[in-house]
């Protein structure tokens, strides 16, 4: 049994690093839900669309639980959820733009959602008690996302032609940002490893590579040779860039602000 981290002993830098980690996960989950929801009525079949709706529900549930983890640090999550401008969002760069086609959605399911699960798995096995109690349920729900994503990835890759080409393009566009995020080894990330909140960057990357190696090879990619993007934003803990403004407005719930119920 791992000893639980005593949050009262954290230095300011460690505390900031933990907030960065929680927010990047929570923001990513919320944006992932938005990207999935857009394909509820645009998926290739009714059944797939229903799955997208269900996955959207899961992602927003995960976002809710992750933002709420800020309370353990005596931080009110509401300003993070409802008041930040888009340039403060810490979501994965893979989620910055609406997927242009179904192949890009499939790549999101396998590669981006898979990267989030790898990070969450590390968190669930670490010293952060709140994560150990909450994250296993998220990971249980995520199993279905990966199953569906992998099945579609193989289907599109095997079909060849334009489907395979679009999948390869989406994979190429996403992987550098995801590799950089999972393999982050800046001061904040190292402090999380030092206090046992996360596994090392090498371990996280190795797990992720094992997870996606076989599928990305189907479109000609060798995951072991993919390098992370060098344009890194240390403050937000993600690659340089930001989500499109419409997605940020939806994530914050701007239109329904007057109806907000907590």
């Amino acid at each position, binding site marked *: 049994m791992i000893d639980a981290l005593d949050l009262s002993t954290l230095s300011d830098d460690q505390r900031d690093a933990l907030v960065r980690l929680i927010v990047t996960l929570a923001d990513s989950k919320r944006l992932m839900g938005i990207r999935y929801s857009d394909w509820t009525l645009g998926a290739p079949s009714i059944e797939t669309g229903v799955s997208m709706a269900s996955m959207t529900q899961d992602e927003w*549930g995960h976002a809710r639980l992750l933002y709420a983890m800020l309370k353990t640090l005596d931080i009110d999550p509401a300003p993070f959820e409802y008041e930040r401008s888009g340039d403060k969002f810490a979501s994965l760069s893979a989620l910055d733009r609406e997927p242009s086609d179904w192949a890009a959605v499939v790549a999101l399911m396998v590669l981006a959602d898979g990267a989030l699960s790898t990070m969450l798995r590390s968190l669930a096995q670490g010293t952060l008690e709140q994560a150990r109690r909450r994250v*296993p349920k998220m990971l249980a729900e995520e199993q279905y996302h990966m199953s569906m994503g992998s099945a579609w990835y193989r289907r599109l890759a095997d079909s060849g032609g334009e489907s395979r080409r679009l999948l390869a393009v989406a994979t190429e566009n996403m992987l550098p940002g995801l590799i950089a995020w999972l393999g982050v080894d800046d001061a904040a990330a190292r402090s999380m490893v030092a206090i046992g909140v996360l596994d090392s960057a090498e371990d996280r990357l190795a797990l992720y590579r094992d997870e996606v190696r076989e599928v990305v090879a189907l479109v000609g990619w060798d995951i072991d040779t993919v390098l992370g993007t060098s344009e890194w934003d240390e403050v937000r803990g993600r690659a340089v860039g930001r989500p499109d403004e419409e997605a940020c407005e939806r994530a914050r719930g701007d239109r329904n602000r007057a109806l907000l119920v907590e």
Partner: protein
Amino acid sequence: MSGGRDLWSAPLGEVPRDRVKAIWKVLQEVLDPEIPISLPELGLIYDVAYEEGIARIDLTFTATACPCMDFIREDITDRLLSEHWIDRVELIEVWDPPWTSDRITVEGREKLKKMGVSA
């Protein structure tokens, strides 16, 4: 507010000797809004405690974004507060261990089976 409230029995007339046991019994009347078996039968209630008028319930949900969360919280609270010996209800949301269908009780499974639902 969800369905099933018409099945609630009248509040207990006297203060029960074993209040925790009484709370479990009362909760057997609170149905899941989507699946018509009780919350304990569905395996959503993880623990019950009682102290000086305060009923404390540890509960989970079938999914992290269960759309019935508010209904469930409201139903539990309203049913328990109808008992004159309960002044306040504290609901503690827990996710450990994660809910799976394995947590449905034998009684719950039998009821679902009669409704043609496999669990």
